[in-house]
């Protein structure tokens, strides 16, 4: 039980930290002008050269590996509902680290999604 809870906590924290780092890197790389093959490939080229991307990838890889480990230990109906906490952790990170404007409406939406995902996955 403690082993699963600790692994789950590291899974959620590393996943959220990785996604926040990648998000910051993508903003630094700058959005593609248009959603066409050439501008998107050019954007991906810039994105792969940002340092924040390479900070995020190992953290996301750790999270991905821990997800595989958790799924082999516990039923998906337990793992995915618990991982819904990452919606809240990620939003906190977006607000305080990335300085996104998370207003009351967005918070309400995130919390509803978090509870909804937990209920759906538990079923």
């Amino acid at each position: 039980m403690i082993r699963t809870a600790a692994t789950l906590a590291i899974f959620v924290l590393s996943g959220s930290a990785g996604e926040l780092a990648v998000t910051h890197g993508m903003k630094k790389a700058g959005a593609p002008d248009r959603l066409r093959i050439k501008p998107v490939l050019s954007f991906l080229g810039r994105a792969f050269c940002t340092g924040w991307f390479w900070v995020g990838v190992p953290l996301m890889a750790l999270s991905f590996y821990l997800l595989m480990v958790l799924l082999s230990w516990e039923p998906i109906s337990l793992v995915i509902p618990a991982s819904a906490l990452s919606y809240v952790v990620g939003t906190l990170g977006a607000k305080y680290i990335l300085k996104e404007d998370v207003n009351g409406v967005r918070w309400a939406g995130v919390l509803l999604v978090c509870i909804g995902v937990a209920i759906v996955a538990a079923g």
Partner: protein
Amino acid sequence: MSHERKLRLKTLVMVFAMMVCATTGDSLLKRGMTEIGPVTLDHAGLFQAFRLAMTSPTIWLAIFFLIGFMLSNMTVLSWADYSYVMPASAFGYVAVTFVGMTVLGETVSPRRWIGVALICAGVFLVGQTKPSTSAVAEAVQ
């Protein structure tokens, strides 16, 4: 088309691509890991799990779809907020429920319907906010 409307539309397209890739990839990953069996947390067990995962076609197909998810996620995050994209991508749970019910003829429990309704309401609320608010994104645009 106004800048705001164009931004919402291209965000919606990319979130849809993310949703399709993530749902397919996760389903294949679960199937592949179930085929491998329980993983033990010692050196030999972890190495064995890694070796089996890397030789499983199901896991490789899952990785292909998850790379598709990652690339579309990277692209949309170059202009949209993380706190906007992340909850919106949860709409995949709603899509899976409707596909299960209409295509596979599955019975959906009342509890699942409650969860689906909450996700829809949450995505609707998030969708009412501006897709991009962070200072870095605005500076780049």
